[in-house]
């Protein structure tokens, strides 16, 4: 809908995340929150009621010392490409899959807050505003003027920093180009990662990192058998880590991961 009638190159933006490189520093999480005006946690918020469009999990291989190994696992909206669960279930079409970019967009102004999309998402990448967003005095100066904050009672999620995409298109238009200048558009988390673990690109472009990761046998995606075609490719040299994406290989119930 957003770009139904606009001509141009059809992109399918995705990510390639190397979990061997991720140090778990959380800079991506902060950058995301700053870029997208994610409100700080209200009083009484827990890790299950706070909003983190991007979240880093620590996952280990279940072994005891000295065989114990762990990886840090950044997770955001996987931008499901086929049978997008949240898009199909929203009763008032507040979720939109942009055909020009493949990004699954959320319209908080239309969201009723029924949370059906949250139940539908297998990756738990949708977050609900359980409180009215409040920024401490003085902190409102840090708000990003290009991104609208959301209100209480609606759902929000990662949209690959759509404000930046719009800004990149603006710059391309000013330069007289039809398509975005390559490399001009990248989400905040990609920019912020000091280890360069998160890479961004167009899956339709064979030279981009995600497109290469798609073909790499050491890459994997989460819950592939569900058929949602997520566009985030994780890479690890460690075999046990590559099994993270396969739920049937999950270890027996025990100490859960900390997010």
């Amino acid at each position, binding site marked *: 809908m957003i770009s139904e009638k606009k001509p141009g190159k059809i992109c399918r933006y995705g990510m390639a995340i190397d979990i061997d490189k991720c140090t778990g520093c959380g800079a991506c999480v902060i950058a995301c929150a700053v870029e997208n005006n994610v409100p700080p946690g209200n009083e009484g918020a827990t890790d299950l*009621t706070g909003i983190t469009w991007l979240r880093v999990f620590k996952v280990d291989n279940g072994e005891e010392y000295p065989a114990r190994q762990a990886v840090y696992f950044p997770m955001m909206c996987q931008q499901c490409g086929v049978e997008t669960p949240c898009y199909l279930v929203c009763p008032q*079409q507040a979720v939109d899959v942009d055909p020009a970019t493949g990004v699954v967009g959320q319209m908080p102004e239309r969201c*009723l807050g*029924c949370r059906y999309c949250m139940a539908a998402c297998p990756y738990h990448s949708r977050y609900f505003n359980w409180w009215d967003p409040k920024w401490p005095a003085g902190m409102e100066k840090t708000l990003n003027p290009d991104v609208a904050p959301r209100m209480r009672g609606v759902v929000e999620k990662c949209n690959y920093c759509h404000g930046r995409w719009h800004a990149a298109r603006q710059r391309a238009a000013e330069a007289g180009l039809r398509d975005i200048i390559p490399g001009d558009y990248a989400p905040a988390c990609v920019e912020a990662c000091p280890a360069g673990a998160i890479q961004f690109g167009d899956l339709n472009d064979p030279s981009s990192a995600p497109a290469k990761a798609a073909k790499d046998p050491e890459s994997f995606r989460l819950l592939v058998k569900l*058929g949602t075609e997520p566009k985030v490719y994780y890479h690890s040299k460690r075999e046990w880590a590559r*099994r993270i994406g396969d*739920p049937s290989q999950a270890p027996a119930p025990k100490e859960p991961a900390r997010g």
Partner: protein
Amino acid sequence: MDKRFIPAGVSRCSTGRFLLWLAPWAAMLLFGLYCAGLCLVKGLNQTHMNNRFAFGLWIFLDLTVIALGAGAFFTGFLLYILKRKELRAVINSAVAMGLMCYGGAMAVLGVDVGQPLRAWFTFWYPNVHSMLTEVTFCISCYLTVLLIEYVPIVLKNRKLRQVPSFLVFEHELHKLVYVFAGVGTFLSFFHQGSLGGLYGVLRGRPFAFREELGIWPSTFFLFILSAAAVGPSFILLTTWLVEKIARKRLVRPQVLQSLGRISGLLLAAYVLLKTVDTLIWLGRTTPRSGFLPAQYYAWRPFGVWILFAEIALFLVPMVILLLPKLRARAGWLVSAAAMACCGVAVNRFVLTIQTLALPTLSFDRFLQYLPSWQETGTFLAVLASAVLVYSISFRYFELFPEEGDLRRELLRAPVTEPALAGK
């Protein structure tokens, strides 16, 4: 004091006693409204729902209450379309109960969503892929139909019917009641099914996901069948309960046994189809999603016992209700009806709460959730308002048309003991 409003031919307790009965429920309603008010004013952080447990007590109870309220449409269908005349004795009560159930569910949904004032967006931008759109449309229409079916019951009040326009309007509406019964059946078919479809389409939750028959997942049809099976049981249960509380005979025992038999037959169909569906789900659908059936029941407290409990709570009442000798005895009949109602509650619970509790990602954890007092209070408001409206309807409207006849018979021949006074 209010004797002029009480229907002719029946006796009701004194006004004082009635007010005494209403008082605790009114208090509960006020408390519940306060809880709902807290949730509306302060936000949904008043509940214990969170980003992983997006649905909680309210959705579970909504689904259960709508399944139980299916008795309204099904009794209407049986009476006005299939012409089962004996159900005339309970249709008014069924409509009142249905109105309570659906009205309560809609009220709770108004509190459950983050932005209730945007509820009309679903009508303005309907997403036909979404089951929730279907649910919203159908339930809104059906609530309207139930209100229209309830109006004649109100207008037939002894004092109100003396107004000529009320009397005539009621008469004309009643002539067309089969239209509403038909529309109600059509709408109920779809919304009961869509409520099942809500979970059956969740590709991301293999515990709930089911394969499709046509354009709908199998849970669509199973929910319709379970609602139709349990509706008559719920009418049976509530009628018996009202008889006990009011200490009056309200219906002939044959009516309740007829309801029980219908319930039993539908339960049989349901148990058969559910077993087939469960086997397909565990044997084929789940592995295709990349999960293992054992993973569903690996977490305490939801072990395999819950699967068997769900089927047993349908199987046992089915057996009881299909055996005429057991059906004839009040104790067995009512216990079976209660079990069937519990069975449907467990079924809805499993599909809402257990679905969300189970992990999807391999490093996810099993989640626990207990409702907060504000959530519980809100639902108590629904219960209290249902009891209040039903009590008032029972006192002033003719919810049980046969009550007068039964009372006259009892007075004529006092040696006949009421059949439902116990085992």
